[in-house]
């Protein structure tokens, strides 16, 4: 049966595939000193892939392909934009970091671009199979990238740990999906939703949902499936960590919410308590563990576990109280976008700061602001934004999160109080980084060259993130289109 294919709608994916091929070919023919061209191609390819998104946004129609398995609507466009911009910033961060190691540059960008392609596919998927393929394409290359610093034991450990737990979660996820297919005989989300409505809450259905939730829980490193995250984050090259905590986490998140929201809205009674528990545990355990960290990357690992908890709050609250999921979906998406912006900035700061101090220990960063006040200001901006202090972007994410839990229901009020307390706790460890940089006296001499400015591409990455963090914070209406996108998903079907 021939399919109608809209090539413009597939534009971003096609351009990224083209870029991947270019990078591979260039890597083959370029002599080693010229390999940095692969980075340039990756950066430009990612930027060009944004163009068809613009055209599609202007056209503004919902394009459904392959019997409804692959949909390009406003929701998919927003997510693709997010993935592309985040990957763009990660490429900028990678440039000098990867070049200094002088090996496998071409492969690095090839793998990262492949992962990016996976996330683009995932954003459009509207059936279990495409979703699964997309999600696995996101994580597959990352197993390799986590072990990038092959001389470093920690990096090897990271790769191994990530691979084994990743495969385990994939198996669980797939098992859940096949149970679901067995129950409903459908893979399309809409068909599943229709079939589940007629089912009573049989043990099989509960098992199917439970397995899928556990699988997704691993992907987004929600407590209690988070144990891999800190070790993997610490061992991976820092730009890869940034990618892990933004792109790959966002991809897992969106996949989970898509399935829950589109395929299982009628089984809300089954997954709502699970989500409530995941949210409450992730916030609390993530924050409490972050309090004890001395390494800045591990701190950010636990912080992103806690932030994932905050992101689940709106959805969990709406589900538990049986109210409108659409609003909650919007709040979660806004949180996701704002978190991506400020977390990328925080990782760019970590790369720049680690360059200067040659250390990832927070104590070694003491007095950094005296050497480089601008980096100090940026540290304060990103870490306080993560803590949700106005007028930085983070406040609006927290605000939307709190706004969506204001439902008169004991379970949601409890969740709101837990979230409010956690918001306070999180300030303590974010402020600790700022305290080290600004308030503490240096505990040792900074290594030579610490006065030098960061590389041009890193400066650009910092500039993009800081501009967005401040602009969204002062004029949050900028992020409002994200909410519209969530509504499209609600009414599109």
């Amino acid at each position, binding site marked *: 049966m021939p399919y109608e294919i809209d090539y413009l709608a597939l534009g971003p994916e096609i351009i990224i595939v083209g870029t991947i091929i270019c990078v591979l070919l260039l890597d083959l023919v370029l002599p080693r000193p010229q390999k940095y061209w692969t980075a340039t191609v990756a950066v430009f390819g990612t930027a060009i892939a944004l163009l068809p998104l613009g055209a599609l946004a202007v056209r503004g129609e919902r394009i459904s392909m392959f019997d409804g398995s692959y949909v390009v609507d406003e929701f998919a466009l927003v997510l693709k934009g997010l993935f592309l911009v985040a990957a763009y910033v990660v490429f900028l961060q990678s440039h000098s970091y990867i070049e200094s190691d002088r090996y496998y540059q071409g492969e690095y960008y090839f793998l990262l671009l492949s992962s990016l392609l996976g996330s683009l596919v995932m954003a459009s998927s509207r059936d279990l199979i495409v979703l699964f393929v997309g999600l696995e394409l996101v994580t597959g290359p990352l197993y390799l990238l986590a072990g990038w610093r092959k001389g470093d034991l920690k990096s090897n450990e990271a790769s191994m740990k990530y691979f084994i737990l990743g495969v385990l979660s994939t198996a669980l996820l797939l098992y859940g999906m096949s149970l679901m297919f067995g129950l409903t005989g459908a893979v399309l989300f809409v068909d599943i939703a229709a079939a589940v409505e007629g089912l009573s809450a049989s043990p099989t259905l509960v098992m199917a949902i439970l397995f899928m939730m556990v699988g997704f829980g691993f992907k987004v490193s929600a407590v209690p499936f988070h144990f891999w995250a800190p070790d993997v984050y610490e061992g991976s090259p820092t730009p890869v960590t940034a990618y892990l905590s933004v792109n790959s986490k966002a991809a897992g998140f969106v996949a989970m919410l898509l399935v829950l929201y589109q395929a299982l809205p009628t089984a809300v009674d089954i997954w709502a308590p699970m989500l409530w528990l995941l949210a409450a545990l992730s916030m609390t355990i993530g924050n409490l563990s972050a309090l004890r960290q001395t390494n800045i990357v591990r701190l950010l690992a636990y912080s992103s576990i806690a932030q994932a908890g905050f992101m689940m709050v709106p959805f969990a609250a709406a589900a538990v109280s049986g109210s409108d999921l659409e609003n909650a979906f919007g709040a979660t998406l806004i949180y996701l976008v704002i978190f991506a912006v400020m977390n990328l900035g925080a990782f760019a700061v970590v790369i720049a700061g680690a360059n200067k101090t040659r250390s990832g220990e927070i104590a070694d960063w003491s007095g950094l602001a005296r050497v480089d006040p601008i980096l100090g200001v940026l540290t304060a901006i990103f870490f306080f934004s993560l803590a949700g202090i*106005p007028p930085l972007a983070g406040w609006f994410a927290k605000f939307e999160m709190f*706004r969506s839990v204001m439902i008169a229901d004991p379970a949601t009020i409890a969740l*709101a109080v837990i979230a409010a307390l956690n918001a306070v706790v999180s300030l303590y460890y974010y402020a600790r980084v700022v305290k080290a940089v600004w308030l503490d006296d240096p505990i040792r001499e900074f290594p030579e060259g610490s006065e030098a400015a960061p590389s041009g591409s890193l400066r650009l990455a910092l500039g993009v993130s800081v501009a967005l963090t401040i602009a969204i914070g002062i004029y949050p209406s900028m992020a409002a289109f994200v909410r519209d996108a969530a509504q499209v998903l609600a009414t599109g079907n």
Partner: protein
Amino acid sequence: MEWLETWGLTVTVFLPIVGALLLGFINRDNENALKRTGLAVAVITFVVSLGVVAGFDFGAGGYNSYQFEVNETWIAAINANYHVGVDGISLPLLVLSTFIVMLAVIYSWNHWEEPKNPKAFLILTLILATGLNGTFVALDLVLFFIFFEIVLLPMYFMIGIWGDKTPRKIPGFSKMHETRLYAAIKFFLFTLFGSAFMLLGFLALYFESGNVGAERTFDIPTLTELGASGAFSGPGNFAFLVFGAMFLGFAVKVPMWPLHTWLPDAHTAAPTVGSVLLAAIMLKLGSYGFIRISLPILPDEAVSWAPFIAILAVIGIIYGSLACLAQTDMKRLIAFSSVGHMGFVMLGIATMTDVGINASIIGMVAHGLITGLLFFIAGSMSHRYHTREMARLGGNMKLMPVMGGILAFTAMASLGLPGLAGFWGEFMSLVGSYNPLEGLSLGVFRTAMVLGAIGTVLTAGYMLYLLQQVNLGEPSAEWEGHQFHDVDRFEATAWIPLIVLIVVIGFFPRVIFDSTTDAVTSLVEMAFGGETTASIGSLTRGG
């Protein structure tokens, strides 16, 4: 004055932060350019706020009516607007804020505490000014929340970088920590704890306004109208929870006992200018929040919380005064005195009468002027003596007569000497609690009055104790041969306006009451249906 009408408040709020950006482009070694730019920004801001006073129609101060209003769409998706305006209640506080910031910049001219860095310090001061001015004019709950929180960051850095470096033992930690680090994060965490719940309260109001009103709104005047019509007083515990959540936010900031413990640490550890801004303006954000938001929007709930607030306020008065008597550190004594004085402010609010609320506003202004000046003096003295231990400071009057004189004057003002500004707030809040809003327990409030009166005696006690320890007696032997330079011209420039105002408000309290009375009276009438007693009403008008 067309221009002032639309832009006056916006300029007052945002000029400082624009100035802070400008300072960012000036080289940090060019100290003179930095100071002049900073001062110019602060002076222009003050002048514009005076322009607002000049253009303010004092006769038109009715219920829930604001002047110099600007209402522009800000976050359309949640119906939050950039809505600013002033009425008779916020006007004195706004001018107090721009005024004190200006004096703080003047004072800091030659008083840079280690590690100096005037650029960073001035930038933080100006960002702080934006947050403070903004809170007093915001008429939208989201906007209010943003400004309320903006002040945290600069103050955190001020305390943390320029604060007290004495190591001290923190319970629960084996290592010694510098006081500044402990105080900075404690201040930050306490305030954030309160404001997280305050935000939940605001959000609850937002959703409820959609159920009882035309649409969901954060607009303070609209919510005030809904509140006065009893829309939020339905059955159930909605109002109770919301008032409680907002209470946490405001009470931490005031601070009310037992949420006050951040205050002595933060005020003592902060650099002089930081302490002045904290005491003179930041504490008022909390009590202003009660008057602007909690009372008018949830009037019935406010009445049922009133005895509770009064009891906490009185505990604050007595506890703060007793704590002062136990201090050996001059700055810490002044810090604790704020707990007591803000107790009187809150007692005034708790009476829910026009007398009491007028008292609380004049009390806020007076406390801003007097305690601001006290912290200036304490800073200048520890700048010269390099100690704040009162036991070592005796005989100051002989070493620095002018400074000693000003200290004596300010201490007298602080203990509520009639004829000086501090008198009106204390006296009238006691008068108010003799005769609280009808329906409130007379027993509780009259007991509060008696205890508050005992508090005034204790206040006199610790202030005289301070004077006796610091000013009187013979200078201790360790200062022999030291040359102390008395008040310098920057100090004089910053302090004389404060002294003049303390006297002026002391003799003519109507400079404040003329602005506040109409707004307060109509607020009390509309929100609580309280009638204004003729005799006391004339007191507030006549002065």
